[in-house]
């Protein structure tokens, strides 16, 4: 999720077009066993040892082998996977999980509370690049017995983000196999052994990863599938062709371009699902560098916002599978502030604002020049559009394309940018990934996807503090809404569009239990229709 590519690929269940099929309402059929599920993925994962990984690819593949304590359901409630039950202290500093009975790793050893504590505190917190932040407050765990683990937090954390975090980034691995030195360089990480419904079989680099059915899975009939094959197909056009040629059964996180999706979805054997990534999709926004004099004026930022025709981006770049954004949190989230105004196109007003701000058009027709830093296929196209859009208000845009590492170094280390096009992904809860863009304490040179705009506002900081520690759901909701209101007023980031992510299937694929992070579920109950 965290990767740009994923995030790019994520979208919402807005379902703006009638032709997008939905699988949620599948009528219940009797599952049948057997068959090989062929899934397209866009690249080699870094490793399949998901307890130390944060990439969508690594987690998508790893989640079939390593399971998490719980999973998120479509109604934003949680369901136990390894955990049978959980509870938390009223001050939000202690979370207790009770494990199910009879859970074994692939090597036959039982899964205990010690493995859970090890996976979170030793692997996740230390080696998962995301974990040091994610689990920053989680400092220790009590293990009253083999079935119980109690995480202790130094700072209160609301239950939704904490549980959501564990659901997405807390795969549990056996301590007896992975408590080794130098885990990043240890060949052991290429022999994943977990408790999931599938076992690792082989990894033909750049070609495929094969998982076999775990015959000893705790649910006797499950998993239904004999095998899952992840086929690595880097080119989106080739992925589309593979669907058309029936060489692929499924692809997650927008496996094909929006333009291709439209064509493919018209095939009789293809189904498109737009709900399976709901909890991890996001919003595209312009990060504005407030260190630059012109941009430090909110009128200029508003003018830029007004120059952008968001509906055009939705249609031209996302083939209609997107909606104009109003704030950093998607409008379909339960945390969304409905009172936010729509961001409408108004070139005339924008020009007026800029004149007022004291930047009249020069002899050459330009007021000033701004660099635009997009990164990634769709974002590059948006960048070209932004260049044209701000030309209408007399701002000369200069697009700078660099590869991912250089791009992020420019934005987050050197702060050498004017407008950067960024995907703000929600990642289950905005606390995990959205607030840092606005929080003045998150201005941290060299740290990616945090506050690079140099936006500092005490009111905002206070609201974020409340939102991050309020245990009471209503109190938290109020704070989150306040954050959105201030963000819309100050515009340190200019929201562009919230777009739809989709999973694509051959119609014979039956998903089993669905959810808003379906790619990260263990797929024990997915099956193929004969």
């Amino acid at each position: 999720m965290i990767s740009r590519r994923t995030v790019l690929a994520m979208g919402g269940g807005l379902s703006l077009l009638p032709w997008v099929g939905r699988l949620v309402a599948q009528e219940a059929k009797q599952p049948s066993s057997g068959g090989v599920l062929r899934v397209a993925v866009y690249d080699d994962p870094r490793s399949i040892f998901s307890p130390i990984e944060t990439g969508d690819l690594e987690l998508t593949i790893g989640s079939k082998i390593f399971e998490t304590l719980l999973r998120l359901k479509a109604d934003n409630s949680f369901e136990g996977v390894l955990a049978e039950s959980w509870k938390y202290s009223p001050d939000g500093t202690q979370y207790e999980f009770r494990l199910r009975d009879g859970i074994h790793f692939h090597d036959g050893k039982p899964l205990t509370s010690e493995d859970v504590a090890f996976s979170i505190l030793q692997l996740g917190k230390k080696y998962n690049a995301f974990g040091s932040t994610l689990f920053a407050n989680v400092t220790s765990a009590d293990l009253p017995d083999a079935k119980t683990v109690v995480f202790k937090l130094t700072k209160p954390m609301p239950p939704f983000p904490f549980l959501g975090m564990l659901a997405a980034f807390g795969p549990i691995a056996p301590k007896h196999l992975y408590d080794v030195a130098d885990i990043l360089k240890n060949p052991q990480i290429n022999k994943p052994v977990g408790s999931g419904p599938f076992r690792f079989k082989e990894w033909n680099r750049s070609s495929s990863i094969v998982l076999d059915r775990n015959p000893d899975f705790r649910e006797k009939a499950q998993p239904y599938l004999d095998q899952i094959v992840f086929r690595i197909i880097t080119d989106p056009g080739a992925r589309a062709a593979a669907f058309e040629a029936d060489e692929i059964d499924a692809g997650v996180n927008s496996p094909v371009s929006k333009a291709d999706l439209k064509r493919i979805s018209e095939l009789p054997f293809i189904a498109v699902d737009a709900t399976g990534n709901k909890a991890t999709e996001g919003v595209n926004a312009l990060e504005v560098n407030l260190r630059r004099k012109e941009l430090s004026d909110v009128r200029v930022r508003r003018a830029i916002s007004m120059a952008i025709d968001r509906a055009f981006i939705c249609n031209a770049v996302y083939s209609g599978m997107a909606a104009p954004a109003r704030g950093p949190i998607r409008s379909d989230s339960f945390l969304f502030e409905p009172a936010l105004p729509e961001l409408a196109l108004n070139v005339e007003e924008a020009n007026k604002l800029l004149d007022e701000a004291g930047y009249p058009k020069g002899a050459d027709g330009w007021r000033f020049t701004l660099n635009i830093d997009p990164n990634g296929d769709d974002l590059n196209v948006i960048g070209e559009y932004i260049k044209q859009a701000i030309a209408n208000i007399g701002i000369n845009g200069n697009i700078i394309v660099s590869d991912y590492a250089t791009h992020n170094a420019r934005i987050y280390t050197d702060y050498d940018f004017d407008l950067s096009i960024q995907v703000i992904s929600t990642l289950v809860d905005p606390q995990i990934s959205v607030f840092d863009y606005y929080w003045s304490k998150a201005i941290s040179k060299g740290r990616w996807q945090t506050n690079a705009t140099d936006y500092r506002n005490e009111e905002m900081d206070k609201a974020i503090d409340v939102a991050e520690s309020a245990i009471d759901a209503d109190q938290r909701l109020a704070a989150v809404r306040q954050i959105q209101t201030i963000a819309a007023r100050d515009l340190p980031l200019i929201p562009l569009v919230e777009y739809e992510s989709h999973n694509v299937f051959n119609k014979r694929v039956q998903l089993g239990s669905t959810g808003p992070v379906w790619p990260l579920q263990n797929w024990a109950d997915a099956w193929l229709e004969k």
Partner: protein
Amino acid sequence: MDASSSQAVRVRRKTTPWAFQVAVNRLKQAIPTIACVLVVNFFLVRLIPGDPVDAFVAKAQGADQAFKDHIRHEMGLDEPIWVQFGIYLSKVAHLDFGWSFQNSAPVLDVILLRLWPTVLLLVFSIGVSLLGGVFLGVTAARYSQTWKDRTIAFMSMVLYAMPAFWIGLSLIVVFSVKLRLLPVGGFDTVGSGKTGIAYALDVGRHMTLPALTLGLFYLAVYTRLVRASMFELLDSDFVRTARAKGLSERTVLWRHMLPHALLPLLTLVGVQLGSLLSGVIVIETVFSWPGLGRLTFQAALQRDYNVLLAILLMSTVLVVCANLIVDLLSAWIDRRMDVN
């Protein structure tokens, strides 16, 4: 004249096997090249802006400085650059190419796994296009200034002028999507469990389209070169002599002219080798071919220094070897021409 006679004197004195001589000479030249490449590559790679640690944690927006420092240490990038260079040299001397953090595997494993699909693809497509190019080039020379020659010349130019991904995408649409004759990409059918000849056929089916795409481009290049060389030779004295002797046109073309035309072709193939890796990136991307070209590009984007350095070194060695083979072949053809 002195020059020619001293040449003659030298040739006569050769007692060691000529192939050995050529090889030793070439290798003597290669050693300083490889040494330079080692140094230049090391620093060239460091010239790319962007931090490998950043690239490593790219998938984690929250990675903090402590974690980055930790990774930097694990990667050995916290040492001064000269120390790193020293370590690199001593490792290379022991044929240790290090660990790829981006692939969670030893660099050598990563590269070797990717090497052979690329080599297979290249050998196949270049081999076929060499044969085709020679055949078409000679045919064009034989029917010079007729419609056959013109058609060959024109077709090779058109093929040469087409962007490779165009050809690739079009072939996929026609043969895979519409006709469903061939797979859209990949190296083999995953999980088919095929072995032996069945497996080879399976790989062959997967290779057909990428090899065709790549091969068509090189076919165009080689055809043009052979044709041009043959045309140059049509006027030369030895060809006139051969014709005057009453040898058949076929003998003149294939026996007398072709060896001369092959020399520049061989040289070109040898010279091109360094750029072949780049050439296949596009093809490998379009056809999901698990090859080295893509790995190079990917490693560069990920700033995976160890993988990059190993690939660069390997490509140097590859080029040196290829040049050696070209030298040997050229010398062999030279000798054959001498005998003639």
